[in-house]
């Protein structure tokens, strides 16, 4: 308290103090990121049992999809049918590898291209809709895709799906190896989206998301950017589908339905939809959640629903919003030059 009298006069010290508290904030964020990155790299050493690797892989793959949806949401559209692209990618990759006997790389590329083409074909039409209407039409698209996967039995194996899908390469047959493979691909996807959002394209996307009406007045450009985001997202979901299929070795239509699409939405809302970190945290939270509720067997689903409701009630801006809010509180108190 007494220090304040001996300090440099307020006007020149205030900027210094403010800068130091925001510096601390940034340092804290960097430290957090470093811990996470190191943790991810040594995860298999910390938790060697296959089960923990399995969950980690599922989280990583889910992150790809949530981040993809995030890109679409940034342009002001909420899609309830993203799982359709994931399923399309999974079946494309499987088909190319198992029926056409192409190498995995071709399957992987196919999983990128085919959903992307679909998004390119329907995007211009579908993205003209806004708000709830867009949500409903994407819901319908998701249902149609699932039905098609179910009905096209000669091609897709129908209700029983396709089993015996080989891993991308022989050395990727082990969970540890696949974990690092998924980690690399997921990191690449996140990096790509981050770079995109930080670039001029990203700023344009945000502008479109913010001011729907004004952007519409600007005309064609807005819809082109939206379609671009939609196509990129579809391709990313195709990547997730391909990695999913070749990890699990078995795919069937049940997994690519409305529930899967909702998981991406939940990850964004629960994690926070304003920043890229949101869906990442959202997926990391939601995917393992049922595992913690296992002990409750029959109550598992009720608790899952309760957690969704509670999190969205007490953290309306998502977990990211809550955490950064707390962090800002922690670090801005120092600004007053002493404790309360």
């Amino acid at each position: 308290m007494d220090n304040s009298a001996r300090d440099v006069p307020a006007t020149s010290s205030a900027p210094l103090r403010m800068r130091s508290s925001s510096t601390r904030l940034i340092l804290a964020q960097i430290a957090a990121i470093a811990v996470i990155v190191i943790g991810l790299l040594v995860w298999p050493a910390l938790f060697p049992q296959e089960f923990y690797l399995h969950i980690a892989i599922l989280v990583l793959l889910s992150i790809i999809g949530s981040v993809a949806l995030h890109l679409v949401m940034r342009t002001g559209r909420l899609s309830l049918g993203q799982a359709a692209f994931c399923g399309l990618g999974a079946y494309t990759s499987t088909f190319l590898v198992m029926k056409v006997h192409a190498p995995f790389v071709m399957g992987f590329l196919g999983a990128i291209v085919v959903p992307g083409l679909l998004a390119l074909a329907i995007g211009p039409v579908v993205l003209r809709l806004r708000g709830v209407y867009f949500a409903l039409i994407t819901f319908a698209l998701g249902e149609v895709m699932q039905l098609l996967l179910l009905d096209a039995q000669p091609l897709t194996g129908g209700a029983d799906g396709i089993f015996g899908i080989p891993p991308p390469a022989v050395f990727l047959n082990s969970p540890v190896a696949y974990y690092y493979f998924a980690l690399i691909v997921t990191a690449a996807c996140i990096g790509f989206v981050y770079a995109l959002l930080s670039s001029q394209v990203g700023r344009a996307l945000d502008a479109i998301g913010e001011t729907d009406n004004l952007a519409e007045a600007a005309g064609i450009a807005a819809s082109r950017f939206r379609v671009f985001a939609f196509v990129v997202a579809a391709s990313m979901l195709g990547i997730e589908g391909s990695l999913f299929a070749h990890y699990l070795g078995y795919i069937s239509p049940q997994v690519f339905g409305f529930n899967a699409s909702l998981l991406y939405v939940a990850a964004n809302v629960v994690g926070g939809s304003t920043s890229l970190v949101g869906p990442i945290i959202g997926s990391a939270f939601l995917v393992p959640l049922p595992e913690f509720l296992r002990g409750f067997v029959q109550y598992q689903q009720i608790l899952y629903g309760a957690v969704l409701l509670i999190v969205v009630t007490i953290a309306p801006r998502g977990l990211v919003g809550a955490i950064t809010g707390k962090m800002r509180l922690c670090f801005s108190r120092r600004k007053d030059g002493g404790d309360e």
Partner: protein
Amino acid sequence: MASSLSLVTQIAINGLALSAEYAMIALGFTLLFGILRIVNFAHGSLFMLGAMFTYEFCTVFHLPYFEALLLGALSVAALGLLLERIAYRPFYGRELQGIIATLGLAIMLQYAAVILWGQQPLSISPTPFPAVLHIAGASLPSGQLVIIVIATFLLLAFYYFTRFTKLGLALRVVAEDPEIAQAQGIHLNVVYVATFLTSVLLAALAGGLIGQQYTLTPSMGTDALIKAFIIVILGGLGSVPGSILGSVLLGLGTSTLDTLFGGNIAEVTWFVAIIVLLAVRPSGLLGRSHG
């Protein structure tokens, strides 16, 4: 084997029954969106609870069917008032969070029902309406006639309510423009609660009515919700005449397509149809374009 007339009559009767069921499910859903801008993912669960409560009053408390139906619907409405505080009110105006909240609620309600009633299909037996009527060579189970009659009655009552009562008029003004409504002295909260109650009551009544004709399981709400989605897309979100039109289209359409072409084709057709419709006319057949 059956004559053309009796086939057409049968298709028409089946379609009418289906339309009546769908109309009741869709009405509450579109009401909630039209006035409160809420996409209620738990609408199907409330429908299911209406059915379950009716079943409970019928088979455990041995009440006559109509009393059980009424009591069941009122119980769900009471539950709805409690749920509104917890899972809806905090999210007015916050669509995204509202979706997740109602979704979480739907999951909770469904699996609570699983714990209470199990997953095996239940039925209200002995059935309260065993008779089967025969009209022009086609058959109509009396239970379905009950559904048609009550659905029509409810729709007419609702129409009367919105045209000729103060609260009903207030509802319509709020649906048009909440600010003007408030300026005119209408208490928004009263309207909101009334709307919510109406929506829940309609869903629960639909559940109890449909439950007597078919089987009941905790997952029956999911299909009801999807039907509601389809209908409001067809008819236009927030439009009551639209959801009636949508119900009739879906009901008669399903009946015709299923009877003439079999189940598979019909299902995909519906989703493709609404995709095309949305692309061409986003606000549905009768909806107004919203900003």
